[in-house]
């Protein structure tokens, strides 16, 4: 599945400054693996040493926080918009 991923400012050093990049994958984990293949180092910024989404990172598929879906197993349908966003905002 071909999707589009919005990249937060602090990760744009991995994408050559691009704020949005294309990626492939049927699940969030596959998309992150594909991102890593094209932008080495980015996966370790999003996932911790245990391979889980870092606690101060929010990932959305469409408008939904993947923590309310299936986490890294969340399906990423063709054309989906994914967003990676720092979680420490608000309040």
């Amino acid at each position, binding site marked *: 599945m071909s999707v589009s991923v919005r990249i937060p400012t602090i990760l744009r050093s991995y994408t050559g400054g691009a704020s949005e990049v294309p990626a492939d994958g049927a699940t969030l984990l596959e998309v992150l693996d594909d991102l890593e293949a094209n932008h080495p180092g980015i996966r370790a910024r999003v996932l911790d040493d245990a391979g889980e989404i870092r*606690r101060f990172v929010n990932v959305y598929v469409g408008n939904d926080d993947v923590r309310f879906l299936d986490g890294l197993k969340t399906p990423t349908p063709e054309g989906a918009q994914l967003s990676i966003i720092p979680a*420490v*905002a608000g309040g």
Partner: protein
Amino acid sequence: MSSTPTGPVVTDSGTVVRDGAFGNARALSCRECGHQVPLGPHYACPECFGPLEIAYDFPAVTREQIAAGPRNIWRYKALLPVPDDIESSPNTEPGFTRLLQARNLGAALGIDTLWVKDDSTNPTNSFKDRVVACALSAAREFHAKVFACPSTGNLANAVAAAGARAGIKTVVLIPADLEKPKQVNSAVYTDSLVAVEGNYDDVNRLASEIAGEEEGWAFVNVNVRPYYAEGSKTLGFEIAEQLGWRLPDQVVIPVASGSQLTKVDKAFRELVALGLVEDKPYRIFGAQAEGCSPVAAAFREGHEVVRPVKPDTIAKSLAIGNPADGVYVLDVCRRTGGAVESVTDDEIREGILLLARNEGIFTETAGGTTTAVLRKLVETGQLDPTLETVIINTGMGLKTLDAVADSVGAAATIEPSYDAFTAAGIV
């Protein structure tokens, strides 16, 4: 831990910030991994996404220096990330709100010594004026063109008012279903109130995305959040100063993002470290609405992480389902021997009336939550009623009239005659 950055502060857009722009602040330090970055409009650690906090090199600060300052938060400017000439820039001059001894409420709940720190008397009637004043200073020093926020209401009021006073364009984003008074209280100050079809967490996400794309925007609780959050320390400073330069035994604080609670704790620790108060044990308690209680749930279940929830409560100013500082609230409450509790919407309404009828303070739903949690903590034996206790009232009841409009009203409607009055059984 990386070494302390040095050299002039330069923003991503190349703006050089003047010397002394952030007072005694030295760097931004990641609360998770300790990585340090230069002072700038940044909020997330580039290494681990953890929250960046202000690190300082404090000089010696005396009680006399503080007492000689203005009767607002700038009396503590040496302990905030603001310049020494902060008073000369137009701002709302919040703080130094009253600390009232609550004898009636204490008696009603069986608490020997109870105080209410009443922040509803701030310029826009909530504690948010404190944090916004610090964020405004940062925005000014970073030469921001737009002063903005995602908000559950009170923050939008404070940002819109402070921006008007400072002469900077404001944009405030709120959930579209927010209480009407909170919408009006922002819209009078700004022509850019944006109602977003979604809950607060949706609004917050949108703000983070805008902050990442737009140059020259200072989102108070996004990209200048480290500066903003420090403003909540002044609640802790004032409580200690108003008690005669000593710390209380117990404090009950409402929890939305959790920032305020963690900053009151930070304030107490800084006062101790600077020798301004004696070190002593204190316990900090968090208060949440059951319809949005991810931190209370994590505390109760002994979890280290906070699982986000979809809010459903009348306490809209506390309705943050994914609280940024939730894990740190757990740390503080566990470290100090406190707790995080939650109460139902009906208990929140009772809490509003409990505070109003015993102390003449009309609080909003957040304060109703705090008061109701105080009662619950006493009833469940979690709070020691023999110890000196402070609760923080963060906002004004006039902004959430609907919450109690159906619970109170005329006790009788009568003819204008004395007979009718006596027949009504009022006295």
